């Protein structure tokens, strides 16, 4: 996401980082999560699940901002996001 200027309070705000969990065998490959993820974290994989659909996989795990849109828009209850604890974030940065 590009900003036309740097937000004034960008130093004060702590960005949350999410961790995506996918139950692959429950997925029906509708690709809503892939299409509507604002940070393009997910992508459809080439592998098949038990039902014969292509489940998504996490392409850019660091980009996830814990917005939970994929969790809300998934019609199959197959994907959810948890917030990563803060210590891990420091290690990563």
């Amino acid at each position: 996401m590009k900003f036309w200027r740097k937000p004034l309070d960008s130093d004060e705000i702590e960005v949350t980082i999410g961790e995506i969990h996918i139950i692959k065998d429950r997925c029906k490959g509708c690709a809503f999560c892939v299409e509507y993820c604002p940070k393009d974290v997910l992508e459809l994989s080439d592998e098949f699940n038990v039902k014969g659909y292509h489940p998504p996989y996490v392409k850019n795990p660091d980009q996830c901002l814990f917005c939970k849109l994929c969790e809300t828009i998934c019609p199959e209850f197959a994907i959810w996001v948890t917030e990563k604890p803060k210590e891990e974030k420091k290690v990563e940065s």
Partner: protein
Amino acid sequence: MNETLTKELKLPEEKHPMENILRMDRIPHIWCSTCGIGIAVTSFAIALEKAKIPLDQVCVVSGIGCSGRVAGYVKLDSFHSTHGRAIPFATGLKLGNPKLKTIVFSGDGDLFGIGGNHFIHSARRNMDMLVLCINNFIYAMTGGQCAATTPLTANTSTSPYGNYEYPFNLPHLADSCGAVYVARWTALHVRRLANSITEALNKRGFSFIEIICPCSTIYARRNRLGSGLDIMKFYHDNSVIKHGANTKDLDIGYQSKIIVGKFVDRERPTFLDCLNDWNRKKFGDKFREYGGPDD
């Protein structure tokens, strides 16, 4: 063969946060890939959490059809009623125990096809309930017959040369019958839908929310509209948010602009308010106010 299958089908170790509100022994559900009803259920669960209503006071009633399955999948007090009779059952439930929050989760064919009469009278009386109508423009589970909401010129299995019947304008119907809260969202507006359901849950009186859902297996296939994802993209490009729009202008044509938003939010005395007020006026001190089975 069987061993590999059981190995592959073993239950996941991690738990989805929605599992508190779903009957997990019935999941995965029968809805098709890209069906929007699952999204509506997720939004409903988020709204329940936000509205902070105790779950033992919530009951879900649904009719027949794809969306009628919701009553079986949610881990709340629920009933899967006969075709079109979800609202009468919910009315009885509400009057039997007025402390309950009754939610009718049903489809357009069930609520407005066979159950249209129940809907208008329930809205007229202002029964205290929330009606969530999944609108996919077609009778999807029974094979794609022409429904009361099918837009003009759309192809269905009973109108193979195009539909020539004018469809219902559901928010206008609900508004003119006296609903106190009328909104319409598509399956794409998940957060707005969840906020809208939260508002409606906290409102007394007959609330109506129309949820426009993609039906890729029947409606999109017969009309060659592509996959469910293509319909979601269509919603993205063609839905216009107009809060407080006049409900007369909310007709949906075939592949036309869809006006979404919250259209009506007003106060009216509910059926039980009117009952208590009138009888108190008539009988004075002899009348004991009706408030539930504890009385």
